[in-house]
Each structure stands twice: as structure tokens, then as C-alpha cells.
């Protein structure tokens, strides 16, 4: 039984990382109807951003002295990396997506694939393809509760993810920018007629989504210990599946989807075979798309002629 709870704990912490990334996919899709393939790479750049900022702040020195990295500096790393990724997301939108926004749906999709490839390979050039050990922004402490091992890192991942998701929900529901985002996802033309600055709102969407992905990247680095330039490919796909599972365009859906994918992956790895931990995500994807294409929390939209 304790093994089962162990898998649940691991699944929830992994799932909350997927949920953070899935939010970016779902927000962009909700507004632009674009699968932002480059989002997985924004997540990767966020992880590297955190790595370099933490190194610059002297994390190695703290680690060597055994004192542990101050919590305040860890927060600085998180916020700075999020800002960096937000900037990257906005730049990608301005340079690659805005010019093709009104083109047929296929064109932006292929552009997104191009941006994703570009970032992967640029990262391999700049950061070398070798995996890097993630700096110990948090020093690991282990607790044992009834045979289940819980680390402070897993708790922190869960906590940070929850805070960011609640923050996002408040942002989307309560601020003018959030309201503009919701208006855009309902009807972009009508929103424009109501005086909403479409470009500004889309920029804000990319900034927020990319910042959340960066937070996911840092948490992923803490959780999985190493990072590499291709880490965004598979993780990005899984997060996208999470968004589809929850109902793409639906913010609570992305969170539910992320947690479910994380749990499914851990339980498959624990009870079936670790070889199929990646396959289960895609099996879920195919099943959900065939059985309920609008996702768990999605709404069926009637097709207009």
C-alpha cells in the first residue's frame, strides 16, 4: 500500500509540472487556435535560464559550504527565469506568429514546428547537447510518513504549482487583461470591435503562458536532477496531451489533465513496465480524442455552416 501512495505522490508532483506547461498550450490555443509547438522549447529555455541565473548567484558556493541556497535567492531565480521566458515567448509571437496570424491554419502550425526545431538546435549549439546537473536551489530534505518518502522538493513543486495556478485563475477572472483574453477566445472580431487591443492581449497571453512554462522548467530540473536541450520535446508533447485531455482552451481542464497524465505515467511505470511510461500518454490521447474529442471539461461547439 505504501508503494501505491509513493507512486501517487510522485505522480502528483510530476503532474503539476505538466499542468503548468499545459496552461500555456491551452491559453494560446483558446485564443489563436494554434498548437504552439515551440512551447516545449520555451519550457526548456526556462529551465536553462534558471540554471544560469542560479549559477551566477553563486549556488555552487552555498552548496559547497553546506549552508544551502537562501530561499529568497531561490525565489529570485524563479522570477527572473519566468521573466526571461516571458520575453522569449513574446519575441516568438512577434517575429514568427503575428505575420502568419491570418493565413490558413496550416501555415502557423508549420511555422510553430519550425520555431521549435530552431530553438532545439540553437540550444544544442549554445548549451551543448550534454545533460547538465541542475543546481541545488533547494536542499533536499526527506521525511518518512508511514513508509512513504516525501521530500521537501516534491512538496515545493506542488506548492509553487498550486500558487501559480490560483494566481493565473485570479488573473484571468479578475483583471482587465484577463477579461480581454476571455473575450478574444470567444470571438476575436467582436472583441476587436469592442475596443480590445488584440495584439497587446495576445502578447500578454504568450508572456503569461511562457512564464508558467519557465516555472515548470525549474521545477522539472529540481525534480529530475538533470536537464538537456531536448527535454522540451517529450515533456511538451505530454503537457499538450494534458491540455487536450482536460479540454483544450479550458484552464481548469489543463490542470486536471496535467495531474491525470502525471498519475497515469507514474502508475504505469510502477505497476506495468517503465518501458511504457511514455506510451501511456499517447494511448490516453488517442482514447480521449476518439471517445470525447472536446476533452473532460470541454464544451462541444456546434459546427456552423
Amino acid at each position, binding site marked *: 500500500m505504501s508503494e501505491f501512495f509513493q507512486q501517487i505522490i510522485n505522480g502528483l508532483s510530476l503532474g503539476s509540472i505538466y499542468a503548468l506547461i499545459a496552461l500555456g498550450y491551452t491559453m494560446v490555443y483558446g485564443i489563436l487556435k494554434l498548437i504552439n509547438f515551440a512551447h516545449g522549447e520555451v519550457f526548456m529555455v526556462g529551465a536553462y535560464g534558471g540554471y544560469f541565473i542560479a549559477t551566477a548567484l553563486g549556488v555552487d558556493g552555498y552548496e559547497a559550504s553546506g549552508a544551502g541556497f537562501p530561499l529568497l535567492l531561490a525565489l529570485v531565480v524563479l522570477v527572473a527565469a519566468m521573466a526571461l521566458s516571458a520575453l522569449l515567448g513574446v519575441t516568438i509571437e512577434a517575429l514568427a506568429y503575428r505575420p502568419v496570424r491570418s493565413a490558413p491554419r496550416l501555415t502557423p502550425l508549420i511555422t510553430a514546428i*519550425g520555431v521549435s*526545431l530552431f530553438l532545439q538546435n540553437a540550444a544544442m549549439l549554445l548549451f551543448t547537447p550534454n545533460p547538465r546537473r541542475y543546481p541545488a536551489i533547494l536542499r533536499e530534505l526527506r521525511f518518512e510518513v508511514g513508509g512513504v518518502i516525501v521530500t521537501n522538493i516534491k512538496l515545493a513543486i506542488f506548492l509553487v504549482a498550486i500558487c501559480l495556478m490560483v494566481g493565473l485563475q485570479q488573473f484571468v477572472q479578475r483583471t482587465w487583461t484577463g477579461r480581454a483574453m476571455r473575450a478574444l477566445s470567444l470571438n476575436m472580431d467582436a472583441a476587436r470591435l469592442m475596443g480590445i487591443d488584440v495584439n497587446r492581449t495576445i502578447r500578454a497571453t504568450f508572456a503569461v503562458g511562457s512564464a508558467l512554462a519557465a516555472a515548470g522548467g525549474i521545477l522539472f530540473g529540481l525534480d529530475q536532477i538533470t536537464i538537456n536541450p531536448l527535454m522540451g520535446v517529450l515533456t511538451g*508533447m505530454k503537457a499538450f496531451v494534458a491540455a487536450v485531455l482536460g479540454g483544450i482552451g479550458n484552464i481548469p481542464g489543463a490542470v486536471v489533465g496535467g495531474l491525470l497524465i502525471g498519475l497515469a505515467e507514474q502508475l504505469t511505470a510502477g505497476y506495468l513496465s517503465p518501458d511504457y511510461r511514455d506510451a501511456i500518454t499517447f494511448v490516453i490521447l488517442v482514447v480521449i480524442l476518439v471517445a470525447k474529442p472536446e476533452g473532460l471539461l470541454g464544451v462541444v461547439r456546434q459546427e456552423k455552416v
Partner: protein
Amino acid sequence: MSVAARPVGNPRWGLRAGVAALTLAALYAAGLGVQAGLIEYVQRIMLIAGINVILAVGLNLINGTTGQFSIGHAGFMAVGAYTTAFVGVKLAPHLASLFGAGMVADAVTFNLALLVGAALAGLAGLVVGLPSLRLKGDYLAIVTLGFGEIIRIVFNNAQFLGGATGYNGDSAAGLPTYTSFFWVFFWVIVVIALIRNVTFSQTGRSLVAIREDEIAAEAMATPTTRLKVLAFTLSAATAGIAGGLFAHMQAGIRPEDFKFDKSIDMIVMIIVGGLGSISGAALGGIFVAVSLELMRDLQQYRLVLYALLLIVIMLVRPEGILGQRELDFGWLTRRFGRKGGA
């Protein structure tokens, strides 16, 4: 093959058979010439270009002509590659005892294996297509992506096919290198003829109608789902042939040869040439093979440049080089009398 079903007196069938025989002879001669005259490196690029043409022309039927979007075609290529390799290895000893070891046995083995590979890849396409082609646009793209990954992971864990280390046949020497200039371009011609005949038939017109407006096509009593599944199956089968040719070009195949990147390569081919154009897709296939080789000197920069190229094409000329137009080969048939071979 279907000559017997037609009236024997029809002179155009005689002409067609003649042109076909001449083409094969010319192809064989060209193959011998290439083998004698060109260094192995150039030969290899030509083989890759031919395989790319098959992939691009096949994928174009679904992505270009029908307007659906598959980003998981590497999966079907993998099915074809593994099936062809496996069947070829198991079949070779039996056929060698039947025909005597040598060229004839090799050719029969290879082509039988390729056909089985194509059939199984087509079957995989059918299995993927049947449930998922009810979905539209992006969702279909995601399902194909998911299936492509699942197929690869299955091969990664199939121990009788070598698992993650790949399949090299039963002998230490690896897979026999059946793939030659003649066979690659023989299949290029077969696939192009097949896809061309489908595209310019009534079925092809219906596929274009689905691309232009699926609801209107359905209102005109076009069986949209059935046709989409048909196009998808056919497209998967051609990817299977390309996979089989690819498998026997080298000593072994690995699951990682058929990653998501391979699907993207195929999309780049048809995007460069122009969605919906057969000759454009063929040009795109050649372009990708040659440009990746030319950029090899740039070492680590080449994939960055490749990605930039893709973005720039999308921003500057999203319809590709040829768009939906075809290269005009009319002057050939005009010069050599009435309509020649396919």
C-alpha cells in the same frame, strides 16, 4: 498486368506496354551507369532522394490533396521498414532454394517483402484512420502524432525485432542491401503513377472537394469519411514502401530512425515544393535530400539553418515553390505523339 482484360486490338495498350518496357530498360541502364560512374557517396544521396520522393508524394495525397494533416507518417514508414526487413530475412532462404541464390531470388524476395510491408503499413493507416478521421484539422494532426510515437515505442520494446538496438536480421552481416538505384526509381515511378492516377480521377476530385469545403462536399453526397480513410491508407502504404527501401539500404534499422523529426522532414518536403502538387512534392523530396547533404559541411549549424529555412518559407511563400501547380511535361507527349506511358 491488366492488359489481358482489355481488347487485344487496342493499339494504345501496345504503345503503353512498349513505353513501359523501354522505361524499365532505360532505368536499368541508368542504374548500371550510376553504379559504374559515380562514387558511392553520390549514389547514396540519389537513393535517399528517391526514397524522399516516395515519402513526399505519398504524404502529399493526404496533407496536400485532401487537406488533412498527418504529422506522424514516420510511424507508417517504420511499420513498412520493419515488416519488409523481417519478411525479407525470413523469406530469403525459401526463395533462394526455389530460384537458386542470385539476382532473381533477391529481386523476388525484396519486392514480395516490400509489398507485404506496404500492405501492413496501409493496414496501420486504416487502423489509425478509421476512428480518427471523424476528427478535424488539428485534432487529426495530434492523433497521428500520438500514433506515430506509439508505433515507435512498440518497436522500441519488441524484443524479437531487436528492441532499442534495432533490427539487423538473423546474420551478423546485417540486412542484405537489396536497395539499388533501379529498385528505388522503379518504385518512385510506380508510386508517382499510382498517386497521379488517383489525384486526377473522380476520387481525386472528391478529395480536393473535401479539402476545399468538407461540409459542402458532404452535402453533395461525397462519402467524406470513406474517402479520407482511403487516402490515408494509400498514403500510409506508400510510406511503408519508402520504409522498406530505406531498411534495405543499410545493415540495420533502429526505432530512433523513425522519430518525430522524420515526420517533420516529410512535412518540410511537401511544404517546400507546394502543398497539393505532385511534382512539387517530388522536387521538395529531392531538395531536402540534397540540401541536408550540402549543409553537412556546416556541421552543427545545419539543423538551425534548416529550421530557419522552414520559418522563412512559411513567412515569405507559404504555398511553397510550386503552390498547387504541376510541372508541365506536356511537351514530352506532344513531341512523341499521343499520350505515352503513365
